């Protein structure tokens, strides 16, 4: 009985943790993408950069996110040939730079508040 109780609650706790972790990461990923795109990159190199910095993101999440940020006016993109292949390069727009600055301020404020509490 106890084992069953542990298994049921163990599983739901794990699911709960996963959901909360995803929620926490979602906002951080936007910030990470914007920060990485201060320098112009195309999708694959952006993904590699984020992975090297410990912010791994799968392509099924990254590309829809880039499109959303572009439609919100925070990113600019253009197709260009590089190494004989057409690639889509992304960079921060003027609005994106402004928003990134504000978000970084917010992030640092949250971080210092949390550090004070933990």
């Amino acid at each position, binding site marked *: 009985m106890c084992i069953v109780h542990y298994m049921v609650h163990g599983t739901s706790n794990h699911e709960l943790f996963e959901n909360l972790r995803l929620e926490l990461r979602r906002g951080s990923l936007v910030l990470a993408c914007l920060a990485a795109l201060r320098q112009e990159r195309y999708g694959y190199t952006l993904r590699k950069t984020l992975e090297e910095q410990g912010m791994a993101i799968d392509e099924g999440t990254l*590309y829809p996110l880039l499109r959303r940020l572009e439609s919100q006016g925070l990113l600019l993109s253009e197709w260009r040939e590089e190494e004989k292949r057409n690639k889509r390069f992304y960079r921060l727009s003027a609005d994106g730079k402004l928003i990134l600055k504000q978000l970084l301020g917010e992030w640092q404020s949250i971080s210092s508040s949390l550090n004070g509490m933990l």
Partner: protein
Amino acid sequence: MNLVDRYLKAVAKALPEAQREDIVRELSEDIRSEMEDKAGELGRPLTESEQQALLKRRGNPLVLAGRYRQDYRTLAFGRQLIGPVLFPFYVRVLSFNLGLTFAVIAIIFIALGVSGQKVGVNDVLSSCLLQLFIQLGAVTLIFSLIERHLTKNPDRWDLSGTCGGLRLDLKIGKNSSLPIERGQWISRFESVSIIIASTVALIWVTGVQRYPFLILGPAASFLKLAPIWYQVYFPIVLLTVAEIVRATINLVRPDWTRFRAVYNIVSHSGGLVVVYYLIRSGSWVAAVGPATEITEQYAHSIAIVNQWTYFALLVAAILSVVMLVVKVTRLVRSLRRGAGSPSVTAPAKEGD
């Protein structure tokens, strides 16, 4: 077409049309960059299984395409039945089925109106509501089962299918450990055709009960259907609805060939009972109006129609008996063959 192209084709099919080309170009570039990177690390080109593993890691093409959509509509009754990935397909299939059904209803009622038959608003509404209920139920059931499968088994897909290159492995539960040859499966095209044909038949049968003109034509002015047809109306409707349900089940589980074989025996037996009662009645059409007003010419016409109906029913009964014997024989043979093994497979032609 190589694996990457097949994967991209499967993704493209589920993408919003306006962005399709752009998204596929970008995804294609990302996949090829990753493959080049891996090949560079290994110092050799990737094998097909390595390419497959890399694509598999990217996830089900349907789910991947769903992430690009801005439309997050779902269907839920308490719990979610159809999620945002399948919802656009659900709406498309339902719209197509309902559109086709309502077109058939419209044609029938227009034909009735043009021929001078009295058509009530209630008749049109009740026919539409009945079909709406059947289509909504069947399509929702199929899609909620696929949704459940996708959620529980996100990795059970491959690129060997013919439907946009993608094949969802819908073998669920106990039978998944018993491989069944795909050549023996009931074709999904066949199941969809039966669902559509049976739905049209159901509309027609429902219409005939109220408007004998649909079967008697201009003769409906002096002929009417005998009471026996009204007695067998519900058994006929029941058999037709059962056929729709059976085809819907086989659409989701095309490997349930033995289920279809057993169902066919039951349905043919039911059909035979209906034909038996029809033959026994002895009269299938009667004259409109009192018997004293029937002219000799009308009486002669009625006798001819009854005679031909009798022959037609007799032929139907003989064919049903032959079909029943064939189906029982095939099932018994398949049971004998399968006695030594736990396979649930019936012969390839079973039930055809």
